[in-house]
Each structure stands twice: as C-alpha cells, then as structure tokens.
C-alpha cells in the first residue's frame, strides 16, 4: 500500500506526485525585534561616546524646532550638540538648525510616519560623536507612530503646546506613556487661551504617573532654565555611567 495516499499501490504505473506535506514551525519573535536590535546597537554606541540622546516627539507645530533653536543658541558655550531632523519632506528644519552653526542632518522619511533605529544609525555617520555632548533627534511630527520605535535614545521627550488642548495625553496615551519628560510649550499664550494647565498635568500623570513635567516658552524664555538644568544633569549622569563602567 502507498504510504502517502493509502491507495492500493504499488501497482505498475503508480506514479502520482505526492505533495510534500507542509510543516508548521513555532516562533515567538516581536515584530519590532529588528528595530530593537538596531536601537540597542545605537544605545551602546551612544554610551561608549558618552552622548546624551533625546528623542523629541510631538504633534506638528508644537514648537520642537523653535525649542531646539533657542536651546542650541543659549547653551552654545556650555554644551556641544548635534541634531537629527526627521520630516516627511523638505529640509526646512535642518536649514533652521544649520543657521545656529550646530551640525545637523535631515532625514526625509517620504511616506514614512516615524524615524526608526536604522535611519538614526546612518543619520549620525557624519557627526563627530566623540566630541558631542547631546544628540537631539527631532522625530516626525506625529503623536502616534514614533511611540513604538526605540531609536536608542536615553529619553523620549514629548512636547505639548498650550494651543493644542489639555486632553492630548488621554487622546494619545501611548506617546505620553513612552515619554519620560513632557515640555508644555508656549505658556506665554496662556492668558489668551482656555487651557487648564493643572488638568493637563493630571491627565499626563493618569497615563504615566512617573512623567516629569516642565512648563516653558521658547518665545519669551520663561521656564527655559529648568529645561537647561535637566539637560546638563543628563549629560553629567551619562558621563558618570560611562566612567563607572570603565572603572
């Protein structure tokens, strides 16, 4: 009898083709495994070079680039920066950063809605990382997708401007949960708006109880000093971690 089909073979002429049986293999691998692996490579590189790395995320128009411009100018004497700019199209943001004299590279994602670890790994190739204190990665303006992609950064920093509405943390909880710091920008406009600052902070803490919040205006300069202190503290901590590993 034919073992494959059970017919009464072997008879002369019994030569139908038996399909090889398909096999099932069990796997357990995260869909972001490849990005995660590249992000860890980036992270190890950043640690070796003692670079404090921030991934700035927000909706479009919250003031990420303006915060960067002012920060780069105000801290020019104290901190060495490099900047990666992510946008779907144009080099407008990179041009603005380049005007401050800081090394910058524009990444255009085309149809893509976020930066990934691979783009960042290549994006920094032209930077002198060993001479850089802080790498700022300005992600594509989008409160959804960038939450899921680790770039190898030390912290995600979410920027929310007071013209957007205080319930953004509840509407986009993934992003506010992934961030360690929330910058509430454009507070100079508060007198003209019905934005409930305390409610906004409460919403953010409902999604992420550990999130740190700073209120500032990169236009008036209010609150910028706390942000600068936080940055400088981050640089010192990163160096300490590296030095402890070397010791």
């Amino acid at each position, binding site marked *: 009898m034919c073992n494959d089909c059970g017919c009464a073979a072997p008879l002369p002429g019994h030569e139908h083709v038996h399909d090889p049986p398909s*096999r099932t293999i069990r*796997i357990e691998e995260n869909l972001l*495994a490849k990005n995660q692996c590249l992000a860890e490579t980036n992270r190890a590189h950043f640690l070796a070079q003692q670079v404090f790395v921030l991934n700035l995320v927000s909706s479009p128009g919250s003031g990420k680039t303006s915060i960067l411009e002012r920060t780069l100018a105000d801290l020019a004497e104290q901190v060495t920066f490099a900047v990666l700019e992510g946008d779907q199209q144009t080099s407008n943001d990179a041009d603005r950063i380049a005007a401050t004299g800081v090394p910058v590279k524009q990444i255009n994602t085309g149809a893509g*809605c976020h930066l990934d670890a691979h783009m960042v790994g290549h994006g920094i190739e032209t930077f002198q990382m060993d001479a850089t204190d802080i790498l700022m990665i300005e992600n594509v303006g989008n409160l959804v997708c960038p939450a899921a992609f680790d770039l190898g950064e030390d912290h995600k920093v979410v920027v929310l401007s007071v013209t957007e509405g205080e319930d953004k943390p509840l509407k986009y909880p993934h992003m506010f949960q992934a961030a360690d710091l929330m910058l509430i920008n454009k507070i100079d406009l508060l007198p003209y708006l019905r934005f409930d600052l305390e409610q906004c902070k409460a919403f953010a803490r409902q999604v992420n109880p550990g999130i740190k919040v700073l209120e500032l205006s990169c236009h008036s300069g209010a609150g910028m000093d706390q942000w600068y202190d936080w940055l400088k503290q981050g640089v010192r901590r990163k160096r300490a971690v590296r030095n402890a590993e070397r010791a």
Partner: protein
Amino acid sequence: MHELSLTQNLIELAEEHARRAGASAIKSITVKIGALSGVIPEAMEFAFDVCCQGTLAQGATLGILHVPAIGRCRQCTTESSMTSLIDSCPECGGFVLDILQGQEMALTELEID
C-alpha cells in the same frame, strides 16, 4: 499608520525563519496582537497582501490571534480586563494599572513548504 512598516518587518522575519528551515514557500503566517499594542489588526490585514508580493510569502494567508488586555492595580492588586491605556481599577478606582498582557505584537507560527 505604522502597520505598513510593521507588516514589512513581519514578512522579513517570516522569510528569515522560513529560509533557515529550508522552506521554498510560506503558506500561512500567524501573529498575536494585543488589544493595547497600538496595532490595528484590520490595517495589518490590509497591508499584508501588498507586503507579500515578490516574497516567499506571496499568496500566504494571515492569521491573527487577539490577546485581550489585563492589568493589575498597583494599589489593591486587583486584576481586571482593560480596554484602553487610561482605564482605572474597577475595585478601588486607582489609576495605575500594570499591564500584565495585551501589548504583544509577535510572529508566533509559520506554515511552510
């Protein structure tokens, strides 16, 4: 919106595993998707056929195992099902729930030839 790139990652992963197993074609791909993973299963299904074109998985079917979300209250340790990241504890009203399951997005099974 990132389902397209996630689905591309999925097909790449599936092809790697299939090649390692010496397969010539992938007949079906099974993934598990947690309710709070941020992945919309319908969007992944929509992207799947396009992403399979020209790969070992051309013509393959996609199976999605839905994983419901469960959280544990940090205050009273009650476990409850969650439908969003901003759910509060049904027992004590606490806002901080540690997510025990429901954030999965993983390739779990391949049927290969």
